[in-house]
């Protein structure tokens, strides 16, 4: 058997094409790699890219209808701007403090103080009422409102409204101190920067033109309409074309329909094993581009950590005796 000498590289050189890139949304094609890499990227984006989220809440006064832990949980789920999270420390391995989350390297303090005065309206306490001690880390709605105000763009009521925490009736009060820490989605989903991350195999659709010509116009139409999503198009002169290959959901409906019509092999659909179409959506804590880049960085850090050290093995007598390199 001919085998190349050990030590040669089997590295791949993946290609990327960005289709759409917005602040919190990205769609891109990833080619010349395999599903394991695509899935590893997806998994890291969801569970291992760090962000900052409220983790510790000290309630001073809470006379609202929600109990303390309910409010603490709601505060934790508010996305905070986390562009600095990659450079921050986890509070469990922060030397400057005892991991109690009270130093600038690993935590950010927030204060909230709200009281419904004697008007008849209920007071809505939102993420906009949170006061951050560090301007880099604040609720994403506050950051967006600030950006809009800076650019002098038209007023966006959604950005101003914030995320509702609790509603207060006349006389009720909420006062608390919260500490936000760096964390990852594996620990708790509140730290996940990803809203959705998905990838699909790019489909390769081949119509057997010869067989297609044997169909009548009505047959063609019923075949084209058998697809639950709009994948094929039928022109007035009876030509069937693929109009949107990616709309195909691998449901096999058109293949079954062709068989039912007595025309097996009318269309051949294969998933390209080395082409993936990714859709990435973030919570706003970091941008979609940052999420992708940070995911690659985190995955590389993981690979660096699993490299072999000199003293890892069991190069004892037994191993040496049984022969090896």
């Amino acid at each position: 058997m001919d085998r190349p000498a050990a030590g040669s590289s089997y590295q791949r050189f993946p290609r990327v094409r960005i289709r759409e890139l917005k602040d919190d949304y990205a769609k891109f094609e990833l080619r010349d790699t395999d599903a394991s890499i695509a899935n590893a990227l997806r998994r890291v984006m969801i569970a291992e890219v760090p962000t900052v989220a409220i983790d510790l809440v000290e309630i001073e006064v809470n006379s609202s209808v929600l109990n303390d832990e309910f409010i603490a949980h709601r505060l934790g789920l508010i996305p905070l701007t986390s562009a600095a999270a990659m450079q921050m420390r986890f509070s469990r391995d922060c030397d400057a403090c005892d991991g109690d989350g009270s130093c600038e390297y690993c935590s950010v303090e927030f204060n909230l103080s709200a009281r419904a005065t004697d008007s008849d309206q209920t007071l809505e306490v939102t993420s906009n009422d949170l006061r951050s001690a560090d301007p880099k880390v604040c609720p994403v709605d506050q950051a967006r409102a600030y950006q809009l105000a800076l650019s002098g763009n038209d007023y966006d009521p959604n950005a101003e409204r914030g995320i509702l925490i609790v509603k207060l009736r006349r006389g009720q009060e909420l006062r608390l101190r919260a500490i936000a820490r760096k964390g990852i989605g594996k620990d708790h989903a509140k730290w996940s920067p990803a809203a959705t991350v998905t990838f699909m195999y790019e489909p390769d659709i081949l119509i057997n033109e010869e067989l297609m010509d044997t169909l009548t116009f009505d047959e063609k139409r019923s075949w084209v309409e058998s697809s639950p999503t709009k994948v094929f198009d039928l022109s007035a002169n009876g030509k069937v074309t693929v109009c949107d290959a990616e709309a195909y959901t691998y449901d096999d409906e058109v293949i079954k329909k062709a068989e039912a019509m007595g025309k097996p092999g009318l269309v051949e659909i294969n998933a390209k094993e080395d082409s993936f179409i990714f859709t990435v959506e973030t919570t706003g804590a970091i941008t979609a581009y940052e999420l992708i880049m940070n995911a690659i960085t985190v995955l590389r850090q993981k690979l660096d950590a699993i490299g072999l050290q000199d003293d890892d093995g069991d190069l004892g007598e037994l191993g040496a005796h049984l022969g090896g390199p």
Partner: protein
Amino acid sequence: MNAPDRYERFVVPEGTKKVSYERDTKIVNAASFTIEREDHTIGNIVRMQLHRDPNVLFAGYKLPHPLQYKIIVRIHTTSQSSPTQAYTQAVNDLDKELEYLKQAFEVEKNRYEERAKQGF
């Protein structure tokens, strides 16, 4: 009450090695690598990369139990290579691939922004 800390899932306990390996006592050039606090993310990419190496006769990984936060990668190679060599090569190749991918993303982002500018 007695729930283990959540971070136990991804922080390697003190005094434990991240990677350790044990040779097979019956088969030459076969070994099992135990990687602490890793899961399918790492296990599957390492396995697939090992499959690209023609000197690797067998490569597989398992997550023995969902509450034991470790994976076991088993490698069997020809006599031209060794499990440690194949493992190191696979990890290095993956690292280089991701480095390349990162650069490709940076280049493509600039190109995308150029395209967007011309589009308007």
